[in-house]
């Protein structure tokens, strides 16, 4: 990229500060530390060359759209309305800074206020923040909040929570808690039997995912009652917010804090990032929520205006006493979420939610008929594990030959399920795609009688 300063301008400016050369601008840097060679990076490329090079690199990737995909496991392929990209690509949104100067940032501030409101509505909670790095780090912050609020120092976390999310929570909480108990699953949802036992450790919170990693719909109300009995908070991770278009909201069912991932709401899969986390909670915990908060207020002339508020909790003021260190969040992605929810609206979002549900259940019926064994019988949303008639990785390889990306092999995260694959079906999977998979399963089961449940 070319910089504006011309040789004449450089000369003039140097003269005005009494220097002879650009070199002289760095005489305060000790010569022992000067880099006395060119940086070893490739020579400068023009736009044309950049496009060519990166086009070639991108061609080495096979996208989800280039095959039939049933891969989910926390990152979901959903249709992205066309209007989102042009809006968030506008320089006024994309190249604006954090809205510390309210009068110069009403656009971003109002958009985030609307995002906060939409997240409150989805989760049925009172307060939502202006976003976090992703669902996993938002969940870690939610766990820290729970420790803070209750003063306890143990956490219970269901094995139904996404493996990466559990790992991130563990990383963040290391040293802050005396123990971190994983709660086993029973038939694909958090085991209440296990919980009764584990609550004896007086945890600050029980963390579950809704729907969970296996697509299972956790019984939040029962879990919330159990938590209340033991003075713990119910913290719910929502990895797939589209599910909230049809399922009861966690806030309705007793969740104290919801930490979610907004990628499904208008953001491409992007090889894992940038996505966007969000945190929502009840009114009484408002001052403990980390990250930015946009509030509505008035300006001096009595007009409605928006501003960052409760900033005194944040790092740039509270410094070492801040409840969290978060500074930059995922603001532009949050705006994308707000645009998505506004475009789909009340009816569209509910319909979108149902499409994934219906297609996933159709697929489940057809594929189990074709010979794959169900692993759980609990209710699920749009993901489900099925046992395949061979090593899971081998199965996935076989399917790749049919140009089908079958799903996620569960063995590495759940060794008790060595031959199971997690399948995800969204509105993007047509009946043809599902039926193509059914055909492929028939041929596998016909050629490999071992392990397939007999077709009924």
């Amino acid at each position, binding site marked *: *990229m070319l910089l504006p300063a011309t040789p004449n301008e450089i000369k003039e400016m140097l003269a005005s500060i009494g220097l002879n050369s650009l070199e002289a601008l760095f005489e305060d*840097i000790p010569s022992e530390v000067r880099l006395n060679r060119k940086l070893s990076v490739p020579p400068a490329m023009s736009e044309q060359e950049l496009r060519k090079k990166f086009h070639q690199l991108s061609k080495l990737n096979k996208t989800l759209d280039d095959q039939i995909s049933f891969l989910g496991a926390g990152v979901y392929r959903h249709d992205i309305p066309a209007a989102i990209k042009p809006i968030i690509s506008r320089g006024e949104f*994309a190249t604006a800074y954090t809205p510390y100067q309210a009068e110069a940032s009403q656009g971003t501030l109002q958009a985030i206020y609307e995002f906060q409101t939409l997240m409150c509505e989805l989760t049925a909670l009172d307060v939502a923040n202006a976003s976090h790095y992703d669902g996993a780090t938002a969940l870690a912050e939610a766990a820290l909040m729970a420790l803070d609020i209750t003063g306890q120092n143990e956490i219970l976390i269901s094995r139904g929570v996404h493996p990466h999310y559990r790992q991130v929570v563990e990383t963040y909480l290391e040293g802050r808690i005396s123990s971190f108990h994983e709660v086993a699953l029973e038939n694909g949802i958090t085991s209440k039997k296990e919980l009764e036992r584990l609550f004896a450790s007086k945890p600050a919170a029980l963390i579950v995912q809704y729907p969970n990693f296996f697509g299972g719909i956790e019984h939040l109300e029962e879990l919330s009652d159990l938590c209340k009995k033991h003075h713990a908070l119910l913290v719910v991770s929502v990895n797939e917010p589209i599910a909230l278009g049809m399922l009861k909201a966690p806030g309705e069912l007793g969740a104290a804090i919801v930490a979610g991932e907004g990628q499904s709401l208008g953001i491409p899969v992007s090889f894992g990032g940038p996505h966007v986390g969000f945190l929502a909670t009840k009114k009484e915990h408002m001052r403990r929520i980390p990250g930015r908060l946009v509030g509505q207020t008035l300006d001096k002339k009595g007009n409605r205006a928006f501003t960052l508020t409760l900033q005194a909790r944040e790092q740039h003021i509270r410094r070492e006493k801040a409840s969290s260190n978060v500074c930059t969040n995922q603001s532009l992605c949050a705006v994308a979420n707000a645009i998505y929810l506004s475009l789909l609206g009340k009816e569209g979002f509910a319909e979108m939610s149902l499409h994934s549900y219906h297609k996933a259940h159709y697929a489940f019926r057809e594929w189990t008929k074709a010979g794959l064994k169900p692993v759980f019988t609990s209710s699920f949303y749009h993901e489900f594990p099925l046992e395949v008639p061979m090593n899971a990785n081998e199965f996935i390889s076989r399917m790749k030959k049919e140009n089908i990306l079958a799903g996620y092999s569960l063995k590495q995260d759940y060794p008790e399920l060595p031959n199971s694959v997690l399948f995800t079906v969204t509105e993007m999977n047509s009946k043809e795609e599902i039926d193509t998979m059914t055909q492929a399963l028939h041929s596998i089961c016909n050629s490999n009688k071992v392990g397939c449940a007999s077709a009924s």
Partner: protein
Amino acid sequence: MPPKIIFEKSVKGRRGYRLPPLDVPPESLPAGMVRETLDLPELSELDVVRHFTQLSQQNFSIDTHFYPLGSCTMKYNPKVNDEISGFSGFAGIHPFQPAEQVQGALELMFSLQEILSEITGMDAVSLEPAAGAHGELTGLLMIRAYFRDKKEDRRIILVPDSSHGTNPATASMLGYDVVQIRSDARGGVDLEHLDKLLSENVAALMLTNPSTLGLFEENILEISKRVHQKGGVLYYDGANLNAILGIARPGDFGFDIVHLNLHKTFSIPHGGGGPGAGPIGVKKYLEPYLPIPIAAKGTEGYFLNENYPKSIGRVKAYYGNFLHLVRGLVYILAQGPEGLKRIAELSVLNANYLMKALKPYYDLPYDRLCKHEFVISANRQKKNGVRALDIAKRLLDYGIHPPTVYFPLIVEEALMIEPTETESKETLDHFIDVMKKIAEEAEKTPELVLEAPHSTPVARVDDVQAARKPNLCFNIGN
């Protein structure tokens, strides 16, 4: 008229998006689990596009205004970065696809790791952290793991009194005791105070260099020596890397860990507050503790290496803000080695040019060669009651985003100015003119400044009310 909130524009029955008809037989819904109410707004696509487009027009941004925000490096964000990161081959891949399907992405990550190592003088890089503060968290987690491994119980982190708030906030988030080091009269770390504070209980010293005053730390080699003598780790906050790109490398002047802000130095758009990307680089002895996974090159191609038994684990799901990593790499390859050095040269030239020109009108607490940013004080203007905040608001009336104010904390009525290398001389000269005018106004017609801004979509905002009676969520029921 202030714009309505999107919920206030909702009209029952409107929709902005249509799905195809359901092509499978519907399944019965799970009993007792289905929600009954969901109050999302109902709007047409035009309603939504107009609403958000109008909102955007109320923002200041780099694309529309000069934005000399110190410590933020508000440089122009080249559009080719956005175009390329938007290629379906980058945006349309899933992190759990098998390695052979994403070789392009892995090669890209690997190249970026190598290039960032070279730029910073470090031995290994992780691209996982999502922001600078996240990078700091990762760095401190690694430091903690390192000392635990050595069976040394070090509880203290040292930060200068001029540090960015995320430094002490991160340290204390991890349970460290934070101790502040004084800056000396030249604006650098006070060596005497450092000596008093250094001990075998100090895990690390976190520094930015150039400092938040825009000054290069003259004693950096001595500081590094003393910290390392006591077995401590020297941490580099990379926020100010723009000033020394291609000129000097933190790995060469004593730093053991570096975090970078791709959304500052490497031109990724700020997005109104994110997303960012905060890769970290480390010296060899800290490499075992890096978060997993790290992109690696094997005999059969590129892969994600999780074989780091001493790793601190994951700091976020998946691998980092990948599309931003694409933007960062595009930017660096567009510069080449001379281009990167040019960035440092011109950003420092622009800053010194402004500093010299503003000196007659504002107090300059550190009157010496600065790097890419400098701090002035509005103390002189205080006699008519005009403070840094008022000057900031008045700049908005002239179509210029204010500099950073009240930071660093060690300068009273601070205004931190960072023009960056992408601004032209005319823009700088205009800024000088405007600052001169405002200084005059502060003298002769202070009400103009005190009541500013006058020409923005809203007048000065009541943030006291906003904090006393927080309204964080629109009451949709109304």
